[in-house]
């Protein structure tokens, strides 16, 4: 029985969303009105009915949905004069790691404190793992994490994860 399972999640539609300085509240209101989605606070991700919002930086988020969807026009319209939207679908490869051993496995890669006291479901962070820029999100308390990197690094990230240091890892 594997301590941890790993599975690539694809395709993912993603849009980079920015608010102009001071316009974040207005942009948040638009998003809430159109999608019932809250703009995520720093270091967090939110979701509404499969539409995910993850915080990347001040005034900067990424809106995602698994599968192929045409998100950009709706988000350009929602942003309107309060910000801008840029399509970044396919730019990232996302690896879902789940199971009791997944925290230990990520401890090998990420210079982040993933202890439940420091990182919990709906937490998100960008960091670097083995010279690869990554974004990590905790999905649930199993624990399950999503680890995302630029698509061109996917094979290298897979090799880094596979060097499991003694853990039983099952690829799906």
């Amino acid at each position, binding site marked *: 029985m594997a301590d941890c399972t790993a599975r690539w999640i694809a395709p993912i539609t993603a849009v980079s969303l920015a608010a102009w300085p001071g316009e974040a509240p207005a942009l948040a209101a638009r998003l809430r009105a159109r999608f019932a989605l809250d703009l995520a606070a720093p270091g967090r991700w939110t979701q509404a009915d499969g539409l995910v919002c993850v915080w990347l930086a001040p005034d900067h988020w990424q809106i995602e949905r698994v599968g192929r969807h045409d998100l950009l026009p709706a988000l350009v319209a929602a942003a309107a004069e309060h910000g801008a939207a840029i*399509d970044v679908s396919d730019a990232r490869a996302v690896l879902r790691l789940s199971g009791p051993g997944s925290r230990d496995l990520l401890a090998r890669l990420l210079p982040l404190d993933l202890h439940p006291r420091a990182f919990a479901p709906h937490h998100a962070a960008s960091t670097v793992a083995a010279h690869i820029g990554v974004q990590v999100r905790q999905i649930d308390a199993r624990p399950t994490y999503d680890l995302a990197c630029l698509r061109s690094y996917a094979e290298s990230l897979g090799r880094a994860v596979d060097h499991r240091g003694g853990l039983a890892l099952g690829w799906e």
Partner: protein
Amino acid sequence: MMRLAAGGLIDRSRSVRFAFDGRVYTGHPGDTLASALLANGVRLLGRSFKYHRPRGIMTAGPEDPCALVELRTGARREPNTPATAVELFDGLEAQSQNRFPSLRFDLMAANGWLAPLLAAGFYYKTFMWPAGWWERVYEPLIRRAAGLGRASGLPDPDTYDRAHLFCDVLIIGAGPAGLAAALAAGRSGARVVLCEADARLGGRLLAETCEIDGQPGAAWATSTEATLRAFPELRVLTRTTVFGAYDHGTYAAVERLADHQPFPDAHQPRERVWRIVAKRTVLAAGAVERLVAFPGNDRPGVMLAGAVRCYLNRYAVAPGQTAVVATGGAEGWRTVEALAARGIRVAAVVDRRAEVPPAQAALAQRIGARLFAGARIGATRGATNLRTVIVEGATGGAQRLTADLLAVAGGWNPQVQLACHLGGRPVWDETRAAFLPPTTPPPGMEVAGAAAGRFGLGESLRDGTRAGSDAAVAAGFATTAPEPPSAPDDDTPATPIWLMPGRKAFVDLQHDVTMDDIALAHREGFRAVEHFKRYTTHGMATDQGKTGGVLGMAAMAALTGRSMAETGTTLHRPPSTPVAIGALAGRHRGKDFRPTRLTPGHAWAAEQGASFVESGVWLRAQWFPRAGETEWQQSVDREVLAVRNGVGVSDVSTLGKIELAGPDGGAFLDFLYINMLSTLPVGRVRYGAMLREDGFVLDDGTVARLEAERWVITTTTANAARVLAHMEFAHQVLRPNLRVAFVSVTDRWAQYAVAGKRAREVIQAVLEHAIPDAAFPAMACGTFGSARLFRISFSGELAYEIAVPAREGDALVRRIVAAGAVPYGLEALGVLRIEKGHPAGGELNGQTTARDLGLGRLLSARKDFIGRAMALRPALLDPARPTLVGLRPADRRTRLRAGAHLLPRDAPARIEHDQGWITSAAFSPTLGHPIALALLTNGPARHGERLRAHDPVRDGETEVDVVEPCFVDPEGLRLRG
């Protein structure tokens, strides 16, 4: 057999077989290699570094300077391993080192007779004449003779791991102070990590007979371990040595996962390096015993007094049958008691003190040991094993004593290294006769127990309890300190450093440094502690002077007439113990040394048999060999001609792509680029160059305006990350009020260049859409379904770049090839752009200006942009600066090479005649001869001149003609095709 009948923390119910120098012995689980060898009566372990003197076992810990063996065989062979730190396992194989032909009869022992010539620093005064002998004679000889153990020379077959660990309290060392600290911190609920280098917790408790809370020390350690492991947030890491303290509460430790087994299990790493971040740290690393300096103090059979107790109590081994104990204070008498309690004859006690306390004198009498007060050791005798100890009394007489064990007590050195790694210097304490931790240890660290000079057991436990509790509170966990475990205190004074006069009194046993060498360094002026360390190599071996370093300092202090405090110590730096390089590398070896980036078309290119090259972190196809092509030149020539005469396709996904959106995009681009971009109409592309603020070219690329408020810029592959960071600085720091957002979309799009006179047909076939010239002229851009199309040309031919979402990239390139395009790689791309004189890496080297590259006309005078002011510095406007030209070999045949320098034909090859250099070179199949681009002083004014290309490193000399830097279609008719 030297194994005692009872006692010890070994498992007598099981036997372990091991081999040393080919002979097989048995031991027990719980033994070290050293204790098992002693139990079998083996005391000679190796030959010393310089003089090849016989060496044995001096201590019971990893700090041992003598007991160095080669462990294991084959690719796992590890030299210079202290036998005292090796956990015995079944099937262990070890060899002695540095001896030929055998350990007993070592020819190099002749070095001992040459000793006067081999004193410290001898190599600064020898091997100089005749000069020619250095390479042919001296160096080969020195290489053969030098060194101690031999590395295997084979690739390391084991894997290593690295991991991160965060905690509130890190406790380094699980001796009495560390265990007490862990009890106090653990109960607060804080996240605690307890690191212990040994396989068992307990530290000195495992070596001494002492009582804590009414239990024997070792038993107390075991029950405490059970308590600790029950705390849910406390993690115990055994076989783990913390070897470095770094900034901001960061520590590094190495965990030995499999060194106590013949080899690791499948998938098991051999070692793991932990990077630990701790809010608070308790350093409870204890103390190690000091050497004592006297003539012949390196002979096998001479052992430190505390180590003798460890062999008796922990391993149930008698290190000898007839002992003499030499003590500088009360410390050695504990060993006298321990030996007597185990029935080992103590022939004599040599006490440095003139007045020996009555209780100790009575003990000597009771056990029948002669007592020499106020005495010292004059010499030891014995070929490969101690046989005789010569004692010199206070009144001058010499006594010869028969003994096979000489236990010496010279006091203890607190292990303060980690407290000094951030630059603090330890402080000499006269009362405790030791260097104590610096007054400013690393922020967040407290030192407790023997490491802080608190040598008494009761004191140590109280100190640890307080430190552990304080650390938890400081980390934010309210707690009260528990009642400290109780044990007796020790009021006896500390044993001072003991140096006795005479020849061959060693202070560094790994590098064979004696007291005489310290005196030599003093005579020759190397008196500062950092100087004499390096001059004599004292303290520079793998043990880093843990047992003997302070002796050298004391000797120099005496010679210079300064105090120990004034003399000081050398700086401590990580690692505090040797760490395998493989462990530091972790999995970053071979293919995994660094990550590789693959384009969406990679799998397709690999199927075509492309030859790949590393371009930064990317893998890019260099060329696509076809059946029958045996040389890369054939493939590249074919690909270039296919583009010039038909149509080719190349993967340009690696170039940086940054998309911008927002009303102020144009203004922002005007600030970044040298030319005007806000005036670019929608649906058009413009070439642009960016400068650094010092006026030199940072990068070049294209700017496409897809919508009124949406732009895409390209960068070179190598500079993509740098340009993005540059733009973020420009926006966030310099122009924060501009309403523009931008992100890298390099990985979002797969992008291919389709170039050649048939390019339009191919694009129309792939997009299933007509693209008439009038609707889509040169430098146009647009969107077609999910694809973006740009009519830009790096090759100078009619060309388009087509971008699709990355997941469609593989399918797209196959459709493009099916439509008739010939795949071409990085090499052909290079030849094509050199034929057109387009600057790339060789020219965009960070040292060229826009004017140098022929882009001066693009510099706008109408706006401020990054680099504008500094680009106008007079020296950068000097026409004599090397500027871009083209070159042809005069004989139309000789290959030109980038890096060759340009000189006038008749001038000697000296720097004052240097006029420039070749930046890029290639063979042009279009023209049928080699070509090159170069930067040449006053370049544009010198077309038609003949110069000399000088390349002394490779080919020598070639005559070249200076021409315009554009060899094919200079009017640019093809790309309008």
